[in-house]
């Protein structure tokens, strides 16, 4: 059973997606919904043993699987998770479940295709997190663009075509450069696409720098880092609620994960050398994008910008080299925790906006006001998530940010200073939005007609609230799993990979 656990987390949702797709037209929509729910539940269920069976003292790959796939190029179906990736497989399976529930009644046209797209995407994303072969990773990484493209384009808002094509091309450009980088590394390792071999092979500084540029394009676009973030607000605003949830909760994490899995271990010297670039871009994301979020009039856009700002924190944490050599453990772990936490919180925020949008069909802040009078339960939950988004202690949002700031201050006071402004900006834009939307008098007749959340919505809100609070109160559950792997990574990155110079005889 445990031998194929990761394969199950990948192929079970995909298979379920194909089955759901086969139910066909909208006359069989209820069947499609239930099948999708069963598929998502099973997908989540098989991801649980990854947590319970995880050996926290082992920093290496666990639950590994290995089968030759394309012998001509020595490409293998190699899977495995370590402390850096295990949470994301679980988080992804969890989010898919939430998305299926969130779209239960809201999606009325082409239900089967909608549910199938999310299930298939869930499997592909799990594959990308579990892949231990660069080409396998690439296949999953890029194949997931297809369902996302369709999700934004079919079920999205008025400007969906522009947003979906922009999303696709932006990400494709980055990932194709990475493909060339992988092929180059394949040549350097004498014919291996295994990520572990990439991490071992010595590389000159020039090669590392060029490869870092290629990786930057792929992963920074996905994170997204400033200045290649412009696709995200468009994609988020136009995507349906489920699409935004997955996009924010999971696919952005893949970009950051790419830095962890590829850039840092494979190119440690270049990463050290150019860490300042990443730090600079991250701080710009935190401060500048935080200000941009402040002036948004569209709720989804505001949360989208807040995502960029929060992800800036993550990339900041990854590149905190103390004394220019060694990564700071607090910063790295904090960044990973921040990734997971942001997965819950941003999914929750987008879901809350979706709940209101389904009733009023507007995302404009100005169209709301006084929602609390009509939807008190909803308002209470949203309060919690808004607080988590601004990093209130005892919520998950606080833990990651605190760790990263703690790590940053050991490296450089000013890094920490600018990073900490997010606590101010985050609180400002989130709570100000919350105030304008939820509090005050009932603004118009749309708001006056609002009904509070139904049981299905309540269920999602409760589950998300429990995770957000749970993670805030007991983050050890999460950090325990990643501790050993992070230590290994830090040690690995501290070793130079430059080829030893040949002394003249």
């Amino acid at each position, binding site marked *: 059973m445990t031998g194929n656990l990761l394969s199950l987390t990948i192929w079970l949702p995909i298979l379920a997606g194909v089955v759901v797709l086969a139910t066909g037209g909208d006359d069989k929509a209820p069947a499609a919904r239930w099948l999708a729910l069963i598929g998502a539940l099973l997908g989540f269920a098989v991801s649980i043993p990854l947590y319970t069976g995880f050996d926290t003292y082992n920093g290496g790959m666990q639950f590994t699987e290995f089968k030759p796939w394309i*012998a001509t*190029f020595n490409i293998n179906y190699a899977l495995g998770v370590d402390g850096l990736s295990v949470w994301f497989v679980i988080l992804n399976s969890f989010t898919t479940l939430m998305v299926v529930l969130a779209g239960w009644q809201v999606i009325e046209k082409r239900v089967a295709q909608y549910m199938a797209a999310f299930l298939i995407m869930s499997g592909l994303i799990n594959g990308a997190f579990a892949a231990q072969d660069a080409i396998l990773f690439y296949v999953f990484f890029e*194949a997931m663009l297809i369902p996302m493209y369709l999700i934004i384009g079919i079920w999205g808002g008025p400007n969906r075509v522009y947003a979906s*094509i922009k999303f696709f091309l932006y990400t494709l450009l980055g990932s194709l450069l990475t493909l060339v980088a992988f092929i180059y590394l394949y040549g350097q390792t004498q014919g291996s696409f295994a990520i572990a071999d990439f991490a071992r092979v010595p590389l000159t500084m020039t090669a590392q720098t060029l490869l870092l540029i290629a990786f930057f394009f792929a992963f920074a676009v996905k994170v997204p880092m400033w200045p290649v973030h412009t696709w995200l607000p468009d994609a988020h605003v136009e995507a349906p609620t489920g699409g935004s949830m997955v996009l924010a909760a999971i696919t952005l994490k893949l970009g950051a994960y790419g830095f962890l899995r590829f850039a840092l271990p494979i190119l440690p010297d270049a990463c050290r050398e150019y860490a300042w670039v990443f730090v600079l871009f991250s701080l710009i994301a935190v401060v500048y994008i935080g200000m941009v979020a402040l002036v948004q009039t569209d709720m989804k856009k505001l949360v989208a910008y807040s995502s960029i700002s929060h992800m800036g924190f993550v990339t900041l944490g990854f590149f905190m080299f103390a004394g220019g050599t060694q990564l700071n453990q607090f910063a790295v772990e904090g960044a990973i925790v921040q990734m997971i936490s942001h997965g819950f919180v941003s999914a929750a925020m987008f879901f809350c906006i979706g709940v209101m949008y389904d009733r009023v069909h507007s995302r404009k802040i100005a169209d709301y006001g006084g929602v609390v009078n009509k939807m008190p339960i909803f308002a209470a939950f949203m309060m919690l998530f808004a607080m988590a988004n601004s990093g209130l202690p005892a919520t998950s949002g606080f833990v990651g940010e605190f760790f990263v700031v703690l790590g940053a201050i050991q490296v450089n006071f000013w890094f920490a200073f600018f990073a900490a402004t997010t606590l101010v900006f985050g609180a400002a834009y989130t709570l100000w939005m919350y105030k304008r939307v939820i509090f005050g008098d009932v603004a118009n007749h749309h708001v006056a007609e609002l009904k509070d959340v139904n049981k299905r919505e309540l269920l999602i809100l409760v589950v998300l609230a429990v995770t957000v609070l749970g993670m805030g109160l007991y983050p050890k559950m999460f950090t325990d799993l990643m501790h050993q792997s992070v230590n290994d990574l830090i040690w690995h990155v501290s070793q130079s990979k430059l080829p030893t110079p040949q002394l003249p005889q």
Partner: protein
Amino acid sequence: MTWTSLNAWAAAPEIFLLVAVSVILLIDLFITDAKRHFTYLLTLVALAVTACLLVNSLAQPSQLAFSGMFVADPIAGVAKIGMVLGVALVLIYGRTYAESRGIYKGELFSLTLFALLGMMVMSSSLNFVTLYVGLELLSLSLYALVGLRRDNVHATEAAMKYFILGALASGMLLYGMSMVYGGTHSLDLLIIAQRIMSGEVNHLLVIFGLVFIVTGIGFKLGAVPFHMWVPDVYEGAPTPIAQLIGSAPKIAAFAFVIRILAQGLEAYVQDWRYMLVLMAVLSLAVGNLSAIAQTNIKRMFAYSTISHMGFLLLGILVGTPVGYAAAFFYAVTYMLTTAAGFGVVMLLSREGFEADRIEDFKGLNQRSPWFALMMLFVMFSMAGIPVFIGFFAKLAVLEAVVNMGLTWLAIYGVLMSVIGAFYYLRVVKVMYFDDAEDKSPLVAGIDTRVVLSLNCLLLILIGLAPDRLLYVISAAVAHSLLPA
């Protein structure tokens, strides 16, 4: 010439096909239009038998025939199987279309088979004369096929253009071949290679000839700057013929290039490599950029073919068996993909309606979710998105190019494919994001539907397990090019 040097058994598939075409041509004379399905079935049977003979020949070692003018080696074997498949797909997808356009005649079948015969001869030739004969048999059949609807202005115009430019290209090729002959005193490619190695040739003359030969190849492949005929011919020709031109002959052209450049003039690899680099770079740019502006899907396919030929050239110009194998794989997978693409276009068309504008695909997902999904496979495969085979074809080519040290070319190639992705995505957008205006049901025979579905599913199934095909193709190239 003795019987042993004749060794005609090595050419059994070609000989069988020739006999079969002649028989079909004769039988068809006695068949009325209403019973034309009989010719159709006979043709498919002939193709099936040819394919069986070819599969049988794959198991045997390489052998020369007709005093070294003809070779039956694994490259030729695999290429021919691909071509037979490509031609069969043309006939199956084109049946309904041809019936409703009044071109469902005996000529359609005999000319198509003659074209196939030409391609097969081309890919088995080791001599300039047989190469040229095969090429002309292919080209003349295609000229006639393009003009099959002789009362259609577009078709006749396309046929004329194709003929004139094709004849010009053939002239170039012949001129180049005559110079190589002058420089080496032989028409036999293996002898030419030997003489070049031993240095008893006039290098200047051979290189001069090489330039003309590469020009001729450029014309036949449709590579920039010799691509002008491609869009007009694709647009003007009846859709099945456009499919024919776009699919199987690309494999033949690949074999043709391998015979001349890799087997005959391999010693000049440094000279022809940069000619091909230039053509590849231009093809990728012009093909992809022009495709964006197209509103007609056949023209879009034409420009996309040009860009794909650029990728194919990238594989060839590496000049190693790995590169050739990558290009071969590219040609075969491209044949499968493009056949499926045209298949869907024909599926949507009906009497008096061509379905050749991109907007004719509007809302296909509402009209037929299944075939919309199939077209989605085709488009993403062409764009090179995993897990479709188009991705692995690109991967193989890029791998060869990067290992050659031409990383900049690989980066250029992938940047161009991002541009390419845009217009493929647009087709998907039209199918999935727009609402259908035309709600009429699809008319197509069960044979077309089943084969087309299988064809499209192959794009993803081979993508999930590409190793088998990759292995067969690399082994074929290795066995044919490296002396045993």
